[in-house]
């Protein structure tokens, strides 16, 4: 063979070798880069009967795929522009103007304008005075509301176009409703006209009303790509090498009294109850570390001062030690006439039952008699309140609203003001915070960029799937 032929052969070989090497490495490189296509399959426990974000019970993770708000909160809880590009306030934060982003349309093709925005906001907040003008929406509240932008980030204030009959909902989100089977299944397809760019996923399939066991089974059988993980299961699922993404401790678990204390004796008894509860044992054993004991209504990552409420001298739940139990007994001894209380809990939640029983045992050790009931009108109830926002003022206001406590009054948005407002709520002796629970999801390895937000929600707008051909 001629040398040049040999050289040509060697070069050809080298060339092909490089090509094949490239081909071999291309999938690896391709897998690390987002690409379009694929269907994300999600299993969830909630089973909403409507997708209207103004209704209660619609998971934020679903709502955000279809609808958008004027304002979004970043990971630090700061309002960021979304459908509104700019906002201004006057009259001491009693009147606000929000300038609507242009070039955005609803999934039904109709443009997003101030009229549509005003109509949507008026529907979810009848007490506001909302008016539309050009590309601006003006909102007037009954009193000064410096947190209005953060409130507009709440899912219930999503901008929705409702059909005349109210049956069809259109949003401006990255996905569009393709099929809706109330409480069972919802199919979403990518919004090709999404103003922020088409999402990577072609579609999202959500199976609703699945319990924890079925969700995990679906994940293991590759019938679901993303499933929810209960706080008490985080540790176990990670121990079984599942990919679990957790949020900050966001969901408040607390004991809530139906009425104000009727006497000083009852106040002492409530203090004693708070001191007797071994929240560390509950978190470490029952929840397997899936939460964070807390004596505050707001988690520490939101308020920054939650640890203050766990300090001694303030009657709040904390890690029980012998001293804490002694204090509980002393507090109880000051109450001469205390009747037994009934403690209600969600009978369908096995973990809630165990926690309630633990509270009963701790209370009994302190000399307080509790009786567990799963229905009726108990004296106090073990409640779980999911997060509504990452803005502390909004969260505190929403908590007060859910717990039927007086709305906190903040002069300004300073931390001290917030602390004082929360302290007032706690000193009402109506609520005993126990823990803040983390939200978590487990995902398959082909799911990428599913990053849960600190508030426990997640978004599929940037999710892409590997191993799926477009």
């Amino acid at each position, binding site marked *: 063979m001629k040398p040049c032929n040999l050289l040509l052969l060697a070069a050809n070989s080298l060339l092909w070798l490089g090509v094949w090497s490239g081909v071999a490495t291309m999938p690896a490189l391709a897998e690390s880069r987002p690409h379009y296509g694929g269907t994300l399959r999600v299993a969830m426990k909630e089973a909403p009967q409507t997708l209207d974000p103004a209704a209660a019970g619609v998971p934020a993770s679903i709502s955000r795929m279809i609808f958008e708000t004027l304002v979004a909160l970043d990971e630090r809880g700061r309002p960021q522009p979304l459908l509104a590009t700019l906002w201004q306030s006057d009259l001491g934060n009693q009147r606000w103007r929000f300038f609507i982003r242009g070039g955005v349309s609803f999934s039904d093709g109709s443009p997003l304008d101030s009229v549509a925005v005003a109509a949507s906001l008026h529907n979810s907040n009848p007490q506001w005075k909302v008016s539309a003008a050009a590309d601006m929406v003006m909102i007037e509240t009954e009193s000064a509301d410096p947190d209005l932008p953060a409130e507009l980030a709440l899912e219930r204030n999503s901008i929705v176009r409702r059909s005349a009959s109210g049956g069809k909902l259109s949003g401006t989100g990255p996905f569009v409703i393709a099929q809706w089977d109330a409480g069972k299944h919802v199919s979403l397809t990518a919004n090709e006209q999404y103003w922020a760019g088409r999402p990577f996923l072609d579609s999202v399939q959500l199976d609703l009303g699945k319990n924890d066991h079925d969700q995990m089974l679906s994940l293991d059988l590759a019938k679901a790509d993303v499933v929810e993980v209960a706080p008490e299961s985080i*540790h176990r699922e990670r121990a079984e090498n599942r990919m679990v993404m957790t949020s900050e401790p966001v969901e408040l678990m607390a004991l809530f009294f139906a009425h104000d204390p009727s006497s000083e004796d009852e106040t002492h008894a409530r203090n004693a109850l708070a001191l007797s509860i071994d929240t560390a044992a509950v978190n470490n*054993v*029952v929840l*397997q570390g899936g939460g964070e004991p807390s004596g505050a209504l707001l988690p520490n990552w939101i308020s920054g001062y939650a640890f203050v409420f766990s300090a001694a001298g303030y009657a709040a739940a904390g890690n029980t030690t012998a001293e804490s139990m002694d204090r509980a007994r002393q507090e109880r001894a000051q109450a001469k006439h205390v009747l037994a209380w009934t403690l209600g809990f969600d009978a369908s939640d096995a973990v809630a039952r165990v*926690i309630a*029983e633990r509270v009963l*045992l701790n209370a009994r050790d302190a000399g307080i008699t509790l009786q567990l009931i799963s229905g009726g009108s108990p004296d106090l109830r073990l409640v779980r309140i999911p997060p509504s926002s990452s803005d502390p003022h909004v969260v505190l206001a929403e908590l007060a609203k859910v717990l039927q406590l007086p709305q906190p009054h903040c002069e300004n948005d300073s931390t001290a003001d917030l602390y004082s407002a929360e302290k007032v709520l706690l000193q009402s002796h109506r609520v005993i915070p126990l823990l803040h629970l983390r939200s978590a999801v487990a995902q398959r390895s082909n799911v990428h960029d599913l990053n849960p937000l600190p508030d426990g929600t997640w978004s599929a707008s940037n999710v892409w799937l590997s191993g799926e051909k477009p």
Partner: protein
Amino acid sequence: MSLRRRLLALFALTVFVSVAAVTGIVSAMARSAFDRANDQRTAALVAQFRREFARRGDEVSRKIQAVAATSESSRIALAAARPAPDYSVFLDDAQTIAETQQLDFLEFVDDQGTIISSSQWPAKFGYKEPLVTPIPSADPFLKEEETPAGPALGLFAIRTVPAGDRKLCVIGGIHLDKTFLASLELPAGMRVLLYENLDRNNFLPDHLIGAADSTIDPQEFAPLIRQVQQTNVQQSNAQKSVGEAGAVIHGNANSNSGDDADETVNAIPLTGESNQLLGVLLVASSRQIYTELSGQIRSAALLAAAVGLVMAVLLSSWAAARVTRPVEELAHAAREIAGGNWNAQVKSTSRDEIGQLADSFNHMTRDLLDQRDRLVQAERVAAWRELARRLAHELKNPLFPLQLTVENLLRAREQGQQQFDETFQESASTLLAEISHLKTIVGRFSEFSRMPQPQFQAVDLDQLAGVVVKLHKAQLSGVGRPPIEIRLELSAAEPIAADPELLHRALSNLVLNAIEAMPDDGTLTLRTCSSRDSAAIEVSDTGNGLSQEDCARLFTPYYTSKVGGTGLGLAIVQSIVSDHGGRISVNSEPGQGTTFMIELPANRDKLPTNTPKENP
């Protein structure tokens, strides 16, 4: 009570006593037989329960042993052996394993008594289980377990899993509940209940568990359970083996006792490791069969008694017809004869003793008639002879002087006219006196023979007595003699039918006799009394009294103890009393006075209508 009613009562009593005795004996035998059978069934059921209990205990032991042998237990034991064990990961293990092994209770406890995982109360992790310090025996045992729903009674076993120098305790068991009771095979008519003695001092109705509890009234068993609680039977040995329960205590369900109880209940105390009373097994045996049998016996007894009563009535009636009628006829005939109808006869209709008695009675009656006739004739002859003797005696006295006087006159005539003239006047006087005497004798005799029949009128005896006393007041005053005290005890409230003149005469005779019997002084007592059917008069004196001989002959005509007496006074009194249908008697002792008692019938039927009451 008549013989017929006595016979009826006797027959009825015989029937009742017989039926009652038979019923009692049969009932006692039936009860005894039922109790024996019930005891046997109960003993069998208790034995079955003990076997089932032992079997269940063995089953629990095997399951716990199996749990202790699992890898999960080993894993937990290894974790517990570490210096700072983290039990959090084992929270749900007990519940999972318990479900797999079909256990109602399961706990993993370290050797310090700290609960690692509990199926019955998951929230109890970290709390102490006192049972394991010290660790009890390997045999199954009863235990009261605390659960969120309250205390529960269970059959437990315990095993240990070694891990180095530490150990893990596995405690598990099954709940003694309806399912356990339902596993017992019960004979018909028996039921078993379990009382969980979770409150040692009180009876809690909600803790009484029955296999089929739709009709249980817990209060029926409250007294028995309280008795068991108070007794709290202890056995000398610890309860090492399940089923070796305490002594059986018998009782009855419902508030009734004895044979009226619906069930016989046997209570078997169930004790725990420390011999504390944890439960009571109640084995109830229905007494329905016995109750039904008793009812049948009672009904049969009542029927037999009713039939017996009817037969007693019929038999007594037949016996009466057969026996008492002839006797009644005899009695009637006897009354007739007593009433004066000596011709009464009894019809003899049979040849038996009653017929013979009737024949004998008739024969006796005829003999009595003959004898009465002969007696009457004899008495008449005797009376004539007595009368002739008396008359001869009375007449002889005046006749002798008459004869002497006539003989004197004849001698005087023979002695001359002068002697005759001297003797004639004296003799004539004597003759006239004796002739007068004879005329008196004849007059009294004639008077006695002409005693009139009583003319009945209503007579007040008290008033009559008063009149008689007044009439003889002069004699009683005692002119020329000491006075006689008069004592009147008159209480004849009811008038009688009598002849007032004749009674006056009779009473006068008695009063005169009494006065003459008290020549010195004394007391004359007149007593009267009356009733609806009769009256009585007593005349008593305190004179010298009479001898027995005098009393016997006192009423004989012409018998007298008085000088110059005619002997007819008391005979007249007797005749008057007899004519009134009465009776007179005398009671006297020498030196103690005399009492004459006249008893008169009321004789109101003899009163003419609208007859006014008259007294002399």
